[in-house]
């Protein structure tokens, strides 16, 4: 069971700020594929992965990173703070 968080337009497109996901996905990319297969709103949110960033347990990571041991996955657009 992984906690999945969405921010900014990913949150808006998916319609949720967070959810618990039962998954056996080995990598972030596998999880994205699983979610995208679920419903159109996920497929739409993840359509252009070049504009999506991922953090694993609150550290920036990449789509090929393994999910083993990870409790929290967050998806969001490139950051625009400051």
């Amino acid at each position, binding site marked *: 069971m992984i906690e999945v968080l969405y*921010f900014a337009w990913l*949150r808006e497109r998916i319609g949720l700020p967070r959810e618990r996901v039962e998954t056996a996905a080995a990598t972030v990319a596998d999880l994205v594929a699983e979610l995208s297969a679920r419903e159109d709103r996920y497929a739409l949110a993840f359509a252009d992965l070049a504009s999506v960033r991922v953090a694993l347990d609150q*550290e*920036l990571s990449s789509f090929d990173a393994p999910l083993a041991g990870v409790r929290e996955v*967050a998806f969001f*657009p*490139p*950051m625009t*703070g*400051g």
Partner: protein
Amino acid sequence: MRLRLQAEPFALGAEAQAFAEAQAGAGAVVTFTGLVRDNAGQLSAMEIEHYPGMTEKAIGAMMDQAQARWALEDALVIHRHGRLLPGEAIMMVATAARHRAEAFAAAEFLMDYLKSRAPFWKKEFGADGAEWVAARDADEAALTRW
């Protein structure tokens, strides 16, 4: 070395004054303040979303790095989230060092990292509706110099 994330407005003047007065060994204090531009009256508000938990971790790591690299006497980061109005301060960075080169470099480093590596997202509200601010290529490129 202090970090404050808050929804409430802050006064850069009061913050800068208190920061400078707390310094004993520093000869140089640099502040950067980001303001909500009103875009010629087109902008009615800005909303800033962030990732509680990760924000503190990411900025704390940047501050530790800046402190070590430029032997800072002190540093302060304040960043707002939630709803902001045109003209209000979005965030500020203050750095104190013995000499100006270190204070400037550390402030620019913190700004470059905050822009592209701290989990904040800005949405602008105007006459034509709301829009998420797009990341600028120049901001990502700025990181390569550090």
